[in-house]
């Protein structure tokens, strides 16, 4: 199998997964989902580190290092803020008796 075809197949299959997985999400979860997806694309950090590792001159290195910083902020901050959002949903379902955590 040619490399191009493999990448194309992977791309196409991922598109379907992306569509399917999200298509039935409830309104309540729109923001956390957006925020979680946002954190996931912070994985560009991996690309940024690769590029920094291979930097051929100082200009490339500086740009790549900035990219590393930005990508880290995106990734780490994204997961943390998503977790904070979701934390508030926790303990809501019937299981949680109302006394639990009434105080702030």
């Amino acid at each position: 199998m040619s490399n191009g075809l493999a990448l194309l197949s992977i791309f196409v299959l991922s598109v379907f997964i992306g569509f399917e997985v999200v298509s039935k999400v409830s309104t309540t979860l729109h923001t956390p989902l957006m925020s979680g997806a946002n954190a996931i694309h912070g994985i560009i950090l991996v690309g940024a580190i690769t590029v920094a590792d291979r930097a051929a001159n100082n200009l490339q290195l500086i740009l790549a290092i900035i990219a590393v910083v930005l990508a880290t902020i995106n990734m780490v901050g994204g997961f943390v803020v998503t977790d904070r959002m979701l934390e508030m949903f926790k303990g809501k379902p019937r299981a949680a008796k109302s006394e639990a955590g009434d105080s702030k």
Partner: protein
Amino acid sequence: MSRNLYDVLGLFVSVCFIMALKGLSSPKSARRGNLIGAFGATVATVLVFFEPGSSHHHIALILGAVLFGVVVGVPAARKIQMTQMPQLVALFNGVGGGAAALVAIVEYLKLGSTASTPDVVATVFTVIVGCVSFSGSIITFLKLQELMTTRPVVFPGGRFVIAGTLVGVLGTAGWVINSLGTAPLLIMGALALAFGVLFVLPVGGADVPIVISLLNAFTGLTVAASGYVLQATLLIVAGTLVGASGTILTRLMATAMGRSLFGTLFGAFTAKPQAISEAGEARPVKSGSAEDVAILLNYAQRVVIVPGFGLAVAQAQHTVREMADLLTSKGIDVAYGIHPVAGRMPGHMNVLLAEANVPYEQLVEMEEINPTFPQTDVVLVVGANDVVNPAAKTTPGCPIYGMPILDVAQAGNVIFLKRSMRPGFAGIENELLYDAKTTLLFGDAKESLTKVVSALKNL
């Protein structure tokens, strides 16, 4: 580490991301989903230092940069107020887009004359979309943070400027692809940044979350394109997942807000500067005291509370719950009417009220609560405005026209808790404030509610 092992671990991380998105799509598993995603991302980040063939020349610098990013990102994410989360997401998305653009620029600088056309095209695509995502997200951030007006910014001939910029971007892109020069790349980047700004400016504040979601999908696609250039399957899968799910999500959000996606995006090409009425006309309104409100509530059979952005601003969720419990203990039937876009992010009210442990059964979605308003004696609107504004039904052409609203005008009495006669997010007058059945209780929502609670206790 052998190449095979490295690759298989990369695939494992891809699977983590799929599981993360899957988890995030259902309330029960959402938090776990996010943690799985974070775990996968951590694995990938550690892993990349062991990529076969890495030089490790700049490892200290890189680790320092990562550390710096963590030091900046985590506290920002931790300290932020709930009400400001959407703009933080916009900001994070922007820096992600910026990172993707920078990675692509560095890749571009390395492309020799031997580079294959698809590689060059993918690189240029990443630079453009990354720049658009970056500058566009910054503008949405400014709008949401109210550092600039939330209204659509439209200027005469604006649509021609936007179209012109887009043509400019595409034109320079062709130039860049053919000549592989640094100067054209910089020009192209600048034009793309400008396009991002121009593209978001005319979007009305209410539609901003839709645009964030769209830019989020864009950033996903740039990551996938970077993955193609860098031959990294993980980036392709992760980026494509975000791109595809983001596109669907954008459509779902637009539907939930009753907007057409096309209209939101290309509004810029059709919108005309609108005469939006300024707040605070000198018309008579009926304002009441906390005692008046308490009496109305006390003698009601059924009360519906409609929370909005003001509840979040005032952090009055605990107080509102206290009041609701009090009413329930008096045998009054209490429910919360939740509009899907009340607040500043979808689900904002659910999140907020869940924080105060409001019983889940009392949260009723718009479609279900609307038919019950005729049987409702009192509706208490706590810091909401646009989501109950009848103009969405009656005034074609107003910014929220067509959005489904909570039909509170059907109820016996409507009480608004707000601080002034200022309009809501969309910047339009709410006729309901002047209605005969409406009572206004001015003041910060939390203070007003506290007063109402003590008045109720004294009855």
